[in-house]
């Protein structure tokens, strides 16, 4: 199974240091939630794993190979990425859009093979967008488009899937559906890393949570050890009500501490 070793990772954007030494050893088969307040460095951590930003120190190794020494193509085949914000510039059909996920696997100047077409169909089925296949992706609702873009990332069929805020713009039903899907990917052996804001969802579905605060790892572990009242108060500045229903932990932010 795939392993991702992050050690003493430091990243600066321009002159501003964003990550100050993150250490984590992540293994396939798990759904990892990255949580933390806005601007804490969650997305930067995700982008650093894909070598989309240059680390200023430390290292990220995928199965022992430093990602900064890997080619863009090699990274693209191993790590699928669902960026934040549903960027989509041309009115492609859903099928064509999901097919972009196969680009890292195509030989230069060649077309999709039957194996690629099958991967596209699997991904569309997984994300429950098969019936949208011939629709224009720009004319879909926000929730439909989010699932289509997730299908695009699934079509890569990589060992690692990084999803940056996959629940944004989704209604509660589709939020559950996407979390189930990410968990299923993890339990099938992939390493799934999701940047999340919904702490209840994070607690319920993630095998492990990394809490990032001001560019540092404030806590790392299961929901019980990370989502404590004291830590939430310190990191998010909120007092939260925590309870449990049917064995699922609920975290409801109640008021600001400041």
């Amino acid at each position, binding site marked *: 199974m795939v392993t991702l070793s992050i050690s003493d990772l430091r990243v600066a954007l321009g002159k501003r240091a964003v990550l100050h030494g993150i250490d984590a050893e992540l293994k396939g088969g798990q759904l990892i939630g990255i949580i933390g307040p806005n601007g804490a460095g969650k997305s930067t951590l995700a982008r650093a794993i*894909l070598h*989309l930003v240059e680390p200023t120190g430390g290292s990220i190794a995928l199965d022992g190979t430093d990602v900064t020494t890997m080619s*863009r193509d090699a990274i693209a085949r191993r790590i699928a990425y669902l960026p934040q914000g549903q960027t989509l510039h041309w009115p492609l059909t859903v099928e064509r859009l999901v097919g972009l996920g196969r680009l890292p696997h195509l030989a230069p100047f060649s077309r999709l093979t039957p194996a690629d077409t099958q991967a596209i169909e699997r991904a569309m089925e997984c994300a429950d967008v098969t019936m949208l296949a011939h629709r224009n992706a720009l004319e879909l609702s926000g929730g439909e488009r989010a699932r289509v873009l997730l299908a695009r990332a699934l079509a890569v069929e990589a060992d690692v899937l990084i999803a940056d805020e996959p629940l944004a713009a989704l209604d509660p039903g589709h939020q559950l559906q996407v979390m189930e899907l990410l968990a299923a990917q993890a339990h099938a052996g992939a390493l799934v890393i999701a940047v999340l804001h919904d702490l209840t969802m994070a607690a319920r579905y993630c095998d492990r949570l990394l809490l990032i605060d001001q560019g540092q790892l404030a806590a790392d572990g299961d929901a019980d050890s990370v989502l404590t009242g004291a830590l939430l108060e310190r990191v998010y500045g909120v007092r939260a009500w925590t309870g449990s229903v049917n064995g699922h932990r609920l975290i409801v932010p109640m008021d600001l501490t400041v």
Partner: protein
Amino acid sequence: MHMNRALLLSTLALLALVAGLISLAIGPAGLPLSRMIAAATGSGDRIATTILFELRLPRMLLALIVGAMLGGAGAALQGYLRNPLAEPSVIGASTSASLGAVIALYFGFAQLHAAILPLFAILGALASLVALFAFSGRSESPLTLILAGIAISTLATSGVSLALNMSPNPFAAMEITNWLLGALEDRSFQHVWIALPCVIVGLALLLWNCRALDALTLGEDGARALGVSLKRTRLRLLVGVAIGVGGAVAVSGSIGFIGLIVPHLVRPLTDRSPSAVLLPAALGGAALLAMADILVRIIPTTNELKLGVVTAFLGVPVFLFHLARERRLW
């Protein structure tokens, strides 16, 4: 509206071919069709043969290759910049090529040899490329590139205006203005040999970017995460546009609107991904410019109409009609 790709490509190629053949039969000499056909089959008289092979054939070939380059460049730039307004002048390539040509005309270098003006135009396009890299720096944002390109384009246009302003006599100004309007009359195979290699290299570099352009639909991070090197994509694209459009403008003068309009006209017939638009836009551009060059010759006017004028008159109404139908998509 989405057409089968092979059908679309062959229809457009056929359109370009038919327009090209019709344009061989038309010219100011007004020779009857039978004499042209005889000349084409090798049994014609000397005059008809000379007119066909030394005047009309190069003119037809130039219309096709210039049109193909402008259409292809427009499609590639719209895809790369993710901007439906993009065309070769937004990165300054065509205007700088014009400035290069105007410099050759203004200082009289153009009289020394027929190849001097086109070479200056190509140099102008390459100079704009260097300036573009210098100004946009390492930024990968399409907006930086557009802003730097528009600044360079404006500077080149001002240079052209300066040359008109300072021209020593009305005839010099007239010569420059005439060239700027864009035309393919009185061209020879020498011009074909200048433009053709530039356009082949230019289009090849643009087609090489197909996959990267598709990936850019997902934005810069999305494309890089799919294995695209943005730096190499940008280099291929800008060098391709500068060389290809430089070579095209060098032989035709400035011909606007093809680069902007043709990608929009063919896009609805494709699956709308940037890579699918490229080749149809090149073929469509070739067909449209060849048709415009036919119109130039059959519309009776005292002065022959300039190609750049006709492409705008032909293209803009079609474009506006098309825009009215497609506006819900933007």
